C-alpha cells in the first residue's frame, strides 16, 4: 500500500492550500460556486416525493388491492342495477382498505421524528470568515474551504480541520457515544481521519475554548451526516408478523380471486346473466376474504402494547409488539441495562501484593491521589461530574477512608480518549501532588517507582511491572473495571499553561481501584428465562474483555468457566469480514468487549444475514442506525437520547433488561392469540363459501347474501376475536423455542382445521337447517325463489343465525390448544362474555326484529328450528374437543414452530 496523505496529516498551511482557502477565508463568489457544486450543508435527503411514494406504497399490497378492486366492482354493480345495497358494500370495503393503508403509512412516517431529533444537533447559524470578514451565515450555506469559528457552547455544523485551537475541548458523544471530552489541537496527526485530534466533527459540542477550522466535508458527507443518512435511508425490514400476514393475505387473495373468476366464467358459459354472475363473484371473493381480520390484528396489537406499557415496555410501532415475541437474539448493552449504572469503588488494591488495603490511612491516601485527577462539583450536597470521579469522591467521603480532609484540586487535565487517562494537581494536607489515573497499559510506561503500602517505594523493574500487571489482570478477571492510580509530589508553583505531558514523569504507582457496577438483581432470573425460551443473549460493552467476561458469567450470559473464546474485542471485530463474523457467532461468541457503538451495526447485519430475529438495545445518537437495522430496536427511556428513542420501536421505561424479557413473553402471547383468532375467523369462511358453490353448481337458492357475510366478518366476529386477543399467556409460552422466521401464520394445519373440519361442520349444520326451512315452506329441488319470498327470508335467516351461534362453540374451543376452553378464567375475560352475548342476541334479533329483518333480508322461523340452531354450539365444541383429546394424547409436548393451529 502506498503512503497516502489526508487532511488530518497536513500542517495547517497545507490544509489551507489543499482546500483552496487561506486565513482570510473564501470569497463569497467562490463560496457560491462551491455551494452549487457540492450542495447545501444539510443532512436531509432531498426527496420531495418521499411522503407521496410512501403513501402510495401502502396501496400496493394484495389485501388493499383486492379490497379496492372489490369496492370498484360494487360501485359498477350499483350503477348497472341500483337498489341492491352494492354501493354501501363498496363504501365499506373502500373504508377498510383506506384505514389499513393509512395506518401503515402513519407507522412508516415516524422516521421523520428521528430526523427532527437529529436536526437539533446542528446549529441554525454559524460564524465564518469570508473575504477577510467575520460573517454570520445560515449553517446550510457552509461549503468546503470555509473558515469556521468555534466558540464555547456551540454545536459544530460541519467536519472541519482545525487550523487554530485555544484550549478547545469537544464532546464527541453524538458520534462516539463517549461522553468524556476530547482536546483538539491544530497540529498534524498520523491517526485515521475519524480518530484525529485535529478534526472537529459535525453534531458535536464545543465544551470549552475556541478555535478556527477549515470545513472539508458538509452535509451528508460529514460523519454525522452519514449517521443521519442511515437514519433516513435504512428501511426497516418487514417484521415477522408483516411477513406472515403478507403470506396469509396473498394465499387468501389467490384463493378468493381464483374461485371468484372461475365461477364467474362458469356462470357466463352456463348462461346466467352478467349481473347474477357479478354478484356471485363478489360473494365468493367477500366470503373468502376475512375483512375484519386485519383491523382485529391491529386491535390485538394495540391491546398488547397497553399490557406491555404496564411492564415498562413502551411500544412505538405496533408490529414491534409481536416482533419482540419473535426475538431469537437479544444484543444488549451492559451498563445501565444489565447493571445498575451506579459505579462504586469496591476494592482498593496494593500494586504488588494484590492485597486489599485495609488500613484507613492507606485507603485515604490512595483515594486522595485518585481524587487529584478528578473533577467533581457539589450541587445540592450531591457530587456531580464524571461517574467514575463521583464514585471516587463518594468513596472518600463515605467513610471508606480514614476520615481526613479530601484533596483540593488545583488544576485538572480532563480524560482524553486517545491518552486513556486523566490527570490533575491537588493539595493534600499542605502537600501538592500531581496525580494520574486511567488504564494500566498507558500508565505503565510513565512509572518510575512502585509504592507498596507500609514499605519503602521501590524503583520499577520488569519484574515489579509484571507483578502489578498480574494484579490488574486478576482484578479485571473478577469483573471489576480497573483504574490504575499513580502520582508524585509536585514541589513549587506550576507554570500556567504547562502541558500534561511535561508533568507526567517520575510517577509512583499507588495501586489499583476496583470499580464495580452492580448487576441488577432481577437480571440473572431474566436471563434464565431467556435460556428456557431458547433466546440467545449477547452483551456489547466498551469494557475490558476480562471485565466483560466476568460480568457476563455473573449474569448468566455464558456459563461459569467460560473462556475468552466467547469474547470478541472491537479491534478484532473491525478487521473481520461479515462472513468471518458470522462464523464467529456460530462458534459461540456471545460477548463483544472494547467495542464502539458503530460496530453494533456490523453485529446486527451479521445476525440478520444468519436469518435470526434480532433485538438490539441502544441509547446514544450513533446507536440510531443499529436500532433501525435490527428487527426490534430497543431504546433506553431513562438514559437514551431523543434520536435513539425516535429510531427505536420499543422504549424501555426503566432501562432494565428484565423488562425486555417481560415484553418478549407478552409478544409471544400476542402472537399465540393472533393465531387463535385467525383460526376462529377462518372457520366462518367455510359456511360462507359453500352456499355460493352450491348456488352456482346446483339449482338451489343462495343460503347467504353478501351483506349477511359482511355482518359476520365485519360485525359479530370482531368482539369475539378481540376477546381471544385478550387471553392471558399460556403457562408454557416461555418454555418453547422462538418460532422460525419462515413460520407461516396460515399453516396447512390451520387451513385444514378451519376450512375442512370446523368450517365444514358449521356449513353442514347451517345449510341443513336452511334446506329444512325451505322444504317445510314448500320448496322443492330446482324450484326458483325470489329474494323477498318469506320462505327464502326465513331460510337464509336461520342459516345466518346458526353460523353465529356455532361461532360461540368455536370461540370457547379456541381459547386453548390443548384444554377444552371451559377452564378457569373464561368469566374473567369480559370481552369474551360480551362476544358471546352479541352472537346470541344478534342471532335472535335478525330472525325476530323488523329492522334487522329489513336490512339483512331475513325472516322468522319456528321456535324449535331456532332451538335446533343452538344445538350447533355443543356440536362444534364437542367435535373439536374430541379432536384435541385425540391429537394431544400421543405426544407429550411439541415445540412451538410445529404447534398445530388450533
Amino acid at each position: 500500500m502506498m503512503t497516502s496523505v489526508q487532511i488530518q496529516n497536513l500542517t495547517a498551511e497545507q490544509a489551507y492550500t489543499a482546500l483552496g482557502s487561506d486565513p482570510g477565508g473564501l470569497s463569497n463568489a467562490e463560496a457560491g460556486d462551491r455551494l452549487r457544486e457540492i450542495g447545501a450543508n444539510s443532512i436531509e435527503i432531498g426527496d420531495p416525493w418521499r411522503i407521496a411514494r410512501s403513501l402510495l406504497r401502502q396501496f400496493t399490497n394484495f389485501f388493499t388491492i383486492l379490497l379496492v378492486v372489490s369496492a370498484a366492482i360494487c360501485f359498477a354493480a350499483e350503477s348497472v342495477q341500483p337498489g341492491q345495497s352494492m354501493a354501501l358494500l363498496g363504501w365499506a370495503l373502500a373504508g377498510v382498505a383506506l384505514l389499513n393503508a393509512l395506518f401503515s403509512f402513519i407507522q412508516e412516517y415516524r422516521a421523520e421524528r428521528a430526523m427532527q431529533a437529529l436536526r437539533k444537533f446542528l446549529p441554525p447559524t454559524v460564524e465564518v470568515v469570508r473575504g477577510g470578514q467575520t460573517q454570520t451565515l445560515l449553517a446550510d450555506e457552509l461549503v468546503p474551504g470555509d473558515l469556521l469559528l468555534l466558540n464555547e457552547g456551540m454545536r459544530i455544523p460541519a467536519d472541519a480541520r482545525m487550523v487554530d485551537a485555544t484550549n478547545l475541548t469537544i464532546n464527541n458523544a453524538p458520534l462516539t457515544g463517549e461522553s468524556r471530552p476530547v482536546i483538539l489541537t491544530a497540529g498534524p496527526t498520523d491517526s485515521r481521519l475519524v480518530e484525529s485530534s485535529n478534526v472537529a466533527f459535525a453534531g458535536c459540542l464545543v465544551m470549552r475554548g475556541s478555535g478556527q477550522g477549515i470545513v472539508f466535508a458538509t452535509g451528508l458527507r460529514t460523519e454525522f451526516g452519514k449517521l443521519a443518512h442511515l437514519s433516513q435511508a435504512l428501511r426497516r425490514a418487514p417484521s415477522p408478523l408483516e411477513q406472515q400476514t403478507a403470506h396469509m393475505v396473498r394465499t387468501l387473495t389467490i384463493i378468493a380471486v381464483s374461485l371468484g373468476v372461475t365461477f364467474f366464467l362458469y356462470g357466463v358459459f352456463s348462461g346466467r346473466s352478467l349481473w347474477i354472475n357479478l354478484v356471485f363473484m363478489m360473494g365468493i371473493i367477500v366470503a373468502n376474504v376475512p375483512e375484519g381480520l386485519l383491523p382485529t390484528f391491529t386491535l390485538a396489537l394495540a391491546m398488547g402494547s397497553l399490557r406491555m406499557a404496564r411492564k415498562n415496555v413502551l411500544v412505538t410501532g405496533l408490529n414491534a409488539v409481536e416482533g419482540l415475541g419473535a426475538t431469537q437474539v437479544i444484543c444488549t448493552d451492559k451498563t445501565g441495562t444489565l447493571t445498575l449504572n451506579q459505579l462504586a469503588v469496591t476494592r482498593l488494591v496494593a500494586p504488588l501484593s494484590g492485597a486489599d488495603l485495609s488500613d484507613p490511612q492507606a485507603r485515604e491516601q490512595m483515594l486522595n491521589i485518585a481524587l487529584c485527577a478528578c473533577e467533581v462539583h457539589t450541587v445540592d450536597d450531591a457530587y456531580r461530574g464524571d461517574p467514575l470521579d463521583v464514585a471516587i469522591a463518594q468513596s472518600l467521603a463515605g467513610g471508606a477512608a480514614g476520615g481526613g480532609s479530601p484533596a483540593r484540586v488545583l488544576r485538572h487535565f480532563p480524560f482524553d480518549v486517545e491518552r486513556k487517562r486523566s490527570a490533575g494537581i491537588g493539595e493534600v494536607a499542605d502537600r501538592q501532588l500531581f496525580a494520574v489515573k486511567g488504564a494500566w497499559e498507558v500508565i505503565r510506561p510513565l512509572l518510575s517507582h512502585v509504592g507498596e503500602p507500609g514499605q519503602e517505594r521501590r524503583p520499577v523493574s520488569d519484574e515489579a511491572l509484571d507483578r502489578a500487571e498480574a494484579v490488574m489482570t486478576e482484578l479485571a478477571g473478577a469483573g471489576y473495571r480497573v483504574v490504575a492510580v499513580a502520582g508524585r509530589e509536585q514541589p513549587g508553583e506550576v507554570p500556567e499553561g504547562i502541558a500534561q505531558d511535561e508533568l507526567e514523569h517520575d510517577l509512583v504507582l499507588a495501586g489499583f481501584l476496583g470499580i464495580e457496577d452492580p448487576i441488577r438483581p432481577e437480571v440473572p432470573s431474566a436471563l434464565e428465562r431467556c435460556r428456557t425460551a431458547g433466546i440467545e443473549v449477547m452483551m456489547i460493552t466498551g469494557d475490558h474483555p476480562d471485565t466483560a467476561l466476568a460480568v457476563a458469567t455473573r449474569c448468566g450470559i455464558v456459563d461459569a468457566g467460560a473462556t475468552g473464546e466467547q469474547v470478541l474485542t472491537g479491534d478484532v471485530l473491525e478487521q473481520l469480514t461479515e462472513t468471518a463474523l458470522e462464523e464467529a457467532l456460530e462458534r459461540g461468541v456471545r460477548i463483544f468487549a472494547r467495542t464502539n457503538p458503530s460496530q453494533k451495526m456490523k453485529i446486527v447485519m451479521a445476525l440478520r444475514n444468519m436469518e435470526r430475529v434480532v433485538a438490539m438495545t441502544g441509547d446514544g445518537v450513533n446507536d440510531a442506525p443499529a436500532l433501525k437495522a435490527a428487527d426490534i430496536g430497543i431504546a433506553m427511556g431513562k438514559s437514551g437520547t431523543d434520536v435513539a428513542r425516535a429510531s427505536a420501536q420499543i422504549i424501555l421505561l426503566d432501562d432494565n433488561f428484565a423488562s425486555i424479557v417481560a415484553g418478549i413473553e407478552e409478544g409471544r402471547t400476542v402472537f399465540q392469540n393472533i393465531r387463535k383468532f385467525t383460526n376462529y375467523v377462518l372457520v366462518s369462511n367455510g359456511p360462507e363459501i359453500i352456499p355460493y358453490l352450491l348456488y352456482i353448481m346446483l339449482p338451489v337458492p343462495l343460503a347467504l347474501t353478501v351483506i349477511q357475510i359482511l355482518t359476520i366478518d365485519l360485525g359479530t366476529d370482531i368482539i369475539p376475536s378481540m376477546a381471544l386477543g385478550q387471553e392471558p399467556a399460556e403457562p408454557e409460552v416461555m418454555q418453547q423455542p422462538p418460532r422460525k422466521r419462515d413460520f407461516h401464520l396460515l399453516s396447512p394445519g390451520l387451513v385444514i382445521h378451519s376450512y375442512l373440519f370446523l368450517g365444514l361442520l358449521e356449513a353442514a349444520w347451517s345449510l341443513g337447517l336452511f334446506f329444512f326451512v325451505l322444504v317445510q315452506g314448500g320448496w322443492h329441488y330446482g324450484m326458483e325463489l325470489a329474494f323477498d319470498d318469506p320462505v327464502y327470508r326465513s331460510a337464509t335467516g336461520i342459516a345466518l343465525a346458526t353460523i353465529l351461534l356455532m361461532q360461540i362453540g368455536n370461540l370457547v374451543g379456541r381459547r386453548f390448544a390443548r384444554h377444552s376452553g371451559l377452564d378457569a378464567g373464561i368469566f374473567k375475560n369480559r370481552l369474551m362474555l360480551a362476544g358471546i352475548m352479541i352472537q346470541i342476541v344478534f342471532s335472535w334479533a335478525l330472525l325476530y326484529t323488523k329492522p334487522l329483518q329489513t336490512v339483512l333480508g331475513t325472516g322468522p322461523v319456528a321456535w324449535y328450528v331456532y332451538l335446533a340452531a343452538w344445538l350447533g354450539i355443543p356440536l362444534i365444541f364437542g367435535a373439536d374437543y374430541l379432536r384435541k383429546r385425540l391429537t394431544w394424547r400421543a405426544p407429550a409436548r411439541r415445540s412451538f414452530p410445529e404447534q398445530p393451529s388450533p
Partner: protein
Amino acid sequence: MIILAHDGSIYGDWVARYAIGFTAVEADRKLLVLHVAEGKVSEEIVESRFNRLGRECASLGIEFLPQVLPLGQSTYRSLRQSVPHDPQSLLICGTRVKPRGQNYLSGTVAEKLLRTHQCPVLALRVVQPGLLGHPHAMLLPLAGHLDGFLRIWPVFSRLAPFLQTVYLFRSMYVNRLRHPYLSSAHERVLKAIGYKYLAKISAEMEAQLEPLPFRTDRRVTISTDWVNDVLVLASRLKVQIMLLGVSERNLAHRVFHGAAMEKVLRDTPCDVGIYRGP
C-alpha cells in the same frame, strides 16, 4: 500515462489530486493536463492553478505536461482530439453539475468522454476534498456482468495502492410487488448467486494483484432499490470512494439507469468514480 481534463476550477484541482496520486505510481510518471479555454475561467487563474500543480508534480518526481486547448466546436470535441489513442492510459475528468440543471452526468462532457473508446475513462464526483484523492476504503458495487473484473481493472489498478479495505457488493434485484412474498429459501438462493459472483470477482482480483495489498469483504443484499442500498452501504461502511459502471445499453435502460446514477451522484456520502461498464 494519466490524462486529466481540468476545467480550471477548484473542483478541477480536487479531481487533480486523484490524477497526481495515480501518476505517482505509473511506470512513466507522466501527467498530461488538458484544459479547453472556454473563457469561463480566466487565463491567470488557470495558469496559477497549473503552476501549483506543476510544483506539486515536481516534488513527487512527476513529469507535468500542461496543454491549454483552443475551444473548437465544443469542449468535448476539443478534448477528444487531444486525447491519445492508448488503452494503457487513463483519462480522468470531473462530473460537475450543469448550470441551472440537476444532472451531474447526463448530458455533461464527462458523459461524452465516457463513451469515447480512445482510452479508459474515469469520471469523478469529488465531495470530500479533504481526502486529497487518497481514499482508504472503497465500495465496489457490481451488477453481475460476465466481463467481471477486467472492465474495472484500468481504474481499479490505479486506486489499489491507496486502499486498505475494498467492499465488493452486489444487490440482487427483486420486483417491489414480489419482494414481501419472497420465501427464505428463495432469498438464500439469490444470495448464494450473489456471493458466488463476488467470489469470482475476488479470485480475479487476487490473480491480478497477488498478494492483495488490502482487506476485502463481500456484501450481498436482496433489494427493490439498488441505489438506496449502495448509498446506505457507503454511509454504513464509511467508505471514501465508490466505483460505479455506466452502461452503454439501449435508450430505455439508459433512461432508467441514468436516473439512478444521478441520484447516487447527488446523494453520495463519498467520492464517486464512474467507469464505462459493459
